[in-house]
Structure formats: C-alpha cells, structure tokens
C-alpha cells in the first residue's frame, strides 16, 4: 500500500468537454495571486496566456498495461513528465494536468494507481470537470466522453450558467446528479469559482473519503438537502423535489450501499476484488469506508475500473457509528448482483 504522506505533490486533473471553459479556469488558476506555483501539463500548447516555465506540453499517449487487463490503461507521457518534473521539486507546489476535451479521465487516474514511481512522488488530489450549462445535456446524449467526465468527477464546475434560464439550469443539474450524485458542484459564470473550492481538495486521498452522502443541493440554492437514498426509488422516471427534477441516466448510474452491522473481511475483500476484476470495465469509480468485525480501525478504499487502493485509515472513535458505506459509479451496473454480494459479506 502506498504511503499517505503530505510530502507527495498534489495533482489536480482538469477535464471537460470541448468549449466548456477548461482553459478559462486554467488561466485563472495561473494568473490569480494565490502565492502558489503550479506546474501545468497541457495538451494544446499556446492556449494558455501566461508565461511560465513550468507549462509542459503533453501528447496524451495512452497505453495498455501488459497485464492482460484491457481497461488497465495509463498515460505514458504523464509518467515521463512527472519523472522529469520531480527533478525540479521545490520549484512548484502542485501539478495540474489538463486533458483534451475528448479524453477519458480513467487512464490519467489509473496512472496514479499503477505506476510505482508516480505513486512515490505524487498523489491524485481531485478530478475536476468543467461542464457547459448550455450544452451539457445535449452532450450527455451524444458524447460518451462527456458522460465519462461527469461520472469521474470529484468536483464539477458547471460553467456558463448566465447563458441558461433557471429551469434549464435545474434540468442540467438534475442530469448531472443522475450520473454522479457524489461530486461537489459549483455553478459559475466564466469559471468564477473560489480556487480553494477546486484545488487541493484531497478528494482522491484515502484519508479524506469522509463525505459519501449524495451532495444534492450543495450549489446553495436554498433548498434543504435531500436525505433519501435515491436508489430506493424506481428507475426510469423523473419527478419533482421542490422544483428540482430527478433523473436516472439510463446508461450511467451510481449505487450506494451501507450496513450498520460489521463486514466480514475474509468475505468482503475477495468479493470486492472479484467484483472489480469481473465488472471493472463497467465500474468507473468506487469508494468506501468499511467497518470490519474484530477490527478497531476504519478501512478506506477507492478504485478506478479494476484498480483498487485501500488501507486502514484510523481507529474508530468512541461513540462513532461504525457504519460501512460504499459507492459505485458506472455504466450498466449489475445492481442487484452487487447488492446481493455485499449483503453476503455482512456478519450475522
């Protein structure tokens, strides 16, 4: 298991479909006076309007690992660039990786799971997806890349909200929540978001998988937070909740599981490993906090497709509810099979 040290350089992955506003956000990050220095790995060299010797052009070269697992793809160029950047440690505080608008975020994220040298020096901080409020709903229908980027996000910057009506905004948010109810969502115009809301979030850090509650109305529109688990509802409907539509995407879903009874580690671990080994192509992200029987420590894990990373996080606090919680985001998830498998790992 990799060490969870703060000396590792945080890496923010910035995704978003063509024209959503990634470059605008990047230019803001680089020009704002925040006292931090970022090394930025970009794809379209020259779009960044800031002179900085730590802007590096990347080729977005994705390759399959030679381990027989077809979804084990990594970004070879990133491995090389991070290796080179580590020679200039101390010259920058954090790294931002911009992906092209058509990129699948999985290979970038997986690079931080499988590459020993990358893991030693850097840690994935969060995947930020910039989405265009006006066009995202259309792209979710015709561009699988756009859907992947939403599903993968830890933070979603819903941009260009000034170009849509209130009803259209509610519509696109509901579409986003139908795919990924767990990401933090910020509504912006011209990517005017507090940088502290998107950078150094620790969202991908095992130490910080704390808030697994669906983050429904975090955009601050005055509604109460929903407390329900939306998977108790039937699928394929949309219905109003105080004016907010509630969609279920037909292809991409999230699934949350919980148990107040402890899990049997000898059953749970093989089950989870087998699940991602067999269904990993469908599972984009997975995260969990686990309470095992005869174990006084919280166990946390997260995964991207078939890759899992997990470790004991800390001792359960006195009086803390020892609840196990897991979430999966993916396409065509075998929901009932996952629920049944999870149930079978609960101690009786």
């Amino acid at each position: 298991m990799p060490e969870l040290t703060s000396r590792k350089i945080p890496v923010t992955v910035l995704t978003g479909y063509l024209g959503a506003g990634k470059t605008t956000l990047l230019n803001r990050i680089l020009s704002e006076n925040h006292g931090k220095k970022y090394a930025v790995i970009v794809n379209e060299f020259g779009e960044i309007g800031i002179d900085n010797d730590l802007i590096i052009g990347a080729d977005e070269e994705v390759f399959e690992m030679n381990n027989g697992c077809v979804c084990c793809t990594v970004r070879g160029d990133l491995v090389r660039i991070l290796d080179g950047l580590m020679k200039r440690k101390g010259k920058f505080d954090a790294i931002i990786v911009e992906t092209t608008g058509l990129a699948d975020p999985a290979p970038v994220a997986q690079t931080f799971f499988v590459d020993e040298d990358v893991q030693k020096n850097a840690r994935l901080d969060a995947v930020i997806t910039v989405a265009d409020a006006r066009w995202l709903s259309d792209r979710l229908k015709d561009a699988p890349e756009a859907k992947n980027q939403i599903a993968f996000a830890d933070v979603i910057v819903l941009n260009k909200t000034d170009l849509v009506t209130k009803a259209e905004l509610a519509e696109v948010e509901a579409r986003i929540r139908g795919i990924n109810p767990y990401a933090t969502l910020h509504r912006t115009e011209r990517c005017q978001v507090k940088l502290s809301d998107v950078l150094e979030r620790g969202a991908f850090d095992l130490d910080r998988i704390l808030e697994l509650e669906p983050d429904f109305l975090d955009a601050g529109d005055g509604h109460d937070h929903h407390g329900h688990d939306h998977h108790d509802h039937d699928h394929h409907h949309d219905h109003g909740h105080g004016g907010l539509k509630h969609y279920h995407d037909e292809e991409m879903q999230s699934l949350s599981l919980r148990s107040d009874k402890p899990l049997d580690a000898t059953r749970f671990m093989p089950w989870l490993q087998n699940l991602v080994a067999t269904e990993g192509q469908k599972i984009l992200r997975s995260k969990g906090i686990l309470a095992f029987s005869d174990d006084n420590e919280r166990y946390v894990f997260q995964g991207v497709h078939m890759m899992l990373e997990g470790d004991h996080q800390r001792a359960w606090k006195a009086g803390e509810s020892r609840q196990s919680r897991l979430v999966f985001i993916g396409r065509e998830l075998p929901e009932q099979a996952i629920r049944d498998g999870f149930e079978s790992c609960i101690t009786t």
Partner: protein
Amino acid sequence: MKQFGPGEPSASIISVTDQVRPLALGMAVTSVHFLGENAAFVGAEEKVAMVSPSGEISAVAVHGGAILCTVTDGSRIVMGGDDGTVVALDAKGEVTLLATDPKRRWIDNVAVHPDGAVAWSAGRTATVRSGKAEEKSFPVPSTVGGLAFAPKGLRLAVAHYNGVTLWFPNMAANPEFLEWAGSHLSVTFSPDNKFLVTSMHEPALHGWRLADNRHMRMTGYPGRVRSMSWSAGGKALATSGADAVILWPFASKDGPMGKEPAMLAPLQARVCVVACHPKQDILAAGYGDGTILMVRLQDGAEILVRRNGLAAVSALGWNAGGTMLAFAAEDGDAGLLVV
C-alpha cells in the same frame, strides 16, 4: 574474500567505508560519470559538480532547468534538459551547446557513438548528428523512451511504445522494427552487438537476439528496472529492480534464453543503481536504504562501501581504469572511493 549469505549480520562484511572520501555537493544528483580523473556529478537541475581526485569541487552551469538525461563516451558528457537544449561537457569543464529544439521541447534522451555522433530525442522525434555535423531526424509512432547506438556501424536503436526501431541514419534502407507489446523505456546493445535489451514500463526486461530477432523475456522483478549495466566484456547484464542484483547471462550465443539469472547481494532493500567495473568481474550496487556494496560476480562476495540507514543511492560510476568509484545519494550526500 569470503562469501557471506544474506542472513549474516552486515557487521561481518568487509568494510571499506572508512576509505571513502565524503563530498558535500549540496545538490540532488541523478548520475555520475568520470571525465579523465575528475568525477562529474550531474545534478537534477542546472549544474554539474566536477570533483578532482583530491576532492576539490567546482560547479559548472549546463542547463537552464532540469537535466533530464545524460550519457558519456569517457571524454565528454552529453546532456539533455527541459530547456530544450543538448549540451556537452568536457574534462576541462567547458560546455558546448550542441543543439536547441526549435520548439524548446524537453530533450528526453541522449546517446553518443564512439566516432563522435550524437543522438537525442524530443517527444516522438529522434535526431542524429553524425561527426560531420549533419543532422537527420526520424519520427517514431510514439514518444521515444530510450536511445542507444550500436557498438558497430552508425545504427541507432529507438525504443518506444510497442517495440524498438533500428534506424541507420546514413542509409536509405527502411528502418527495422522489433515489435513487442508494451512501453519500452530504455534500450541497450550488448557490447558484442549480438543482443538488444529494453527495460519496460512494467517490471520486466525484453530482449532480442539480433541475428534472428528471437525474443527473450526477462521477468520476475518486483519493481521497474531503472538501471542496467553490462559487465566487463559483456558477459552479463546487471540490473536493478529487485532486492538483489539480477545478473542475466549473455556469454553464450543464446544469451539468457532458457536460463535463470544470478541473484547477487540480496538485502532487505531494493537495488536502485548498478555499475559494473570496466575491467574486472566486479560490480557496485546501490540500494534504496542507502547501502552500497561492491560485489564479485563469480561468487557474490561483498564489500561494504556505504552503510544503510542513509538516503537512497541515486548514482554510481567507475572511472575508465576501474581504480575509482564515485557515488551519490538522493539527498546530495556523495563520496569517492579509491579502490
């Protein structure tokens, strides 16, 4: 020398730690080469520290940023940097600018040929400048992972994704492509020109016998192989990547095909750097826990050069005569040993 098993306490190993001349370089070092009798410690950024046999240190500025790759032919060190330049440093400490990438892209790899030709790569383009200062470029399908000149003839091996391209810059013939799935990160010819070996992104080496392009899979490493060194005469290839030095036999015409490698000097730490003695069957191995050992290839007998419990070893190098060993660690701690 007496052979010690891995279970023996390290205190019982012959130690020459008291003969090491410690050097305070004050910078992170990524490689060390000898230029004549001077040891040149290449920094992670900007500078090379030249150290005379008496221990005098003088810093030479070579790049405007990170130094990404280095290679030596014994008379000069050729380096590439993230400032987009290729420079050469000679024994007098003089720096020559050899090339500047027109787009200032990172220079990821460099290679030198005994006749003076130099090769470098930036992204997916490899460039060769032969002794006559002619420049020829060659595009490959994916980013170049490593470059190496064949010991004979002007032939350049370019490692990339899914294999190695063998390019003859002075011939019109089509380049030869040696295919093997995966990402190939560095490449080396055996000194007898019979074998080509790459280290891969996954913890494995791949090799080809050049006479018939037969494959040699060299696997079983727990970690990626970042350091490879041919023993004197090319009889064996020593590698890092495991908790022992992995030594592949190349003395026969079949190379390591169907053979097990020798595992020398096992410790409870990962080997990071290996450097074979230029004349004798001895190698130096540096470990992640700071240990440096000199190891005799025949029987694995060990001599302790640096104790454990210190920063990981990042560089090892012998002078041409094999009378001096230079080393450096990740934190800049360095030393010279007269053998």
